[in-house]
């Protein structure tokens, strides 16, 4: 027996969007630089916490709780996903190219920047998908 896929969006509270505040933990990635302990390589991994900014998207997803996913909703979801992913990939690519060329960063700074940008781009992509979908659904 195959599981029937729900025709409606999941029901969640917009208040869950507050979890996006966890993204600010990513600022802790600057601590090794401030306290001059940059020789310990794994420390900038705190920058990955920027990905939690994506949880701000729960606010918009919550507002669209239990919505019938008809063809217009799906078309808007694909459109939002395409724009969000394009934006995130451009950000990653730009950071990677700039860090190797114009910025001429040292290896540690380059690593920190790329980890931060990866986390931020992931969070931004998740957030933008929900935000843009909400905008497209409610535009006049």
């Amino acid at each position: 027996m195959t599981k029937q896929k729900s025709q409606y969006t999941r029901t969640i509270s917009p208040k869950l969007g507050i979890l996006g505040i966890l993204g600010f933990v990513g600022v802790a990635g600057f601590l090794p630089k401030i306290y001059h302990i940059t020789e310990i390589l794994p420390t900038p991994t705190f920058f990955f916490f920027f990905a939690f900014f994506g949880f701000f998207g729960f606010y918009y997803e919550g507002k669209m709780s239990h919505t019938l996913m008809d063809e217009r909703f799906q078309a808007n979801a694909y459109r939002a996903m395409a724009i969000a992913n394009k934006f995130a990939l451009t950000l990653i690519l730009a950071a990677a190219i700039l860090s190797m060329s114009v910025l001429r960063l040292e290896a540690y700074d380059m690593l920190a920047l790329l980890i931060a940008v990866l986390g931020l781009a992931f969070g931004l992509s998740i957030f933008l998908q929900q935000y843009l979908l909400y905008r497209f659904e409610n535009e006049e």
Partner: protein
Amino acid sequence: MPDFESNLKKYRQLAGLTQEELAQRVGVRRETIVRLEVAKYNPSLKLAVDISRAVGAPIEEIFVFES
């Protein structure tokens, strides 16, 4: 999105259906019907056929595309 003219409101009213009733019959949200009536959403062929059957009018009369 190609520009088109929508006569859905006229044919829906002729069929004696509310937006909500039509939405339920064709399996979409009322908001989608609203956007179809003001030609702000280009429906798929399946939805257009379902609407045509629900209101009892030909597709080309409900959605008029410039040739």
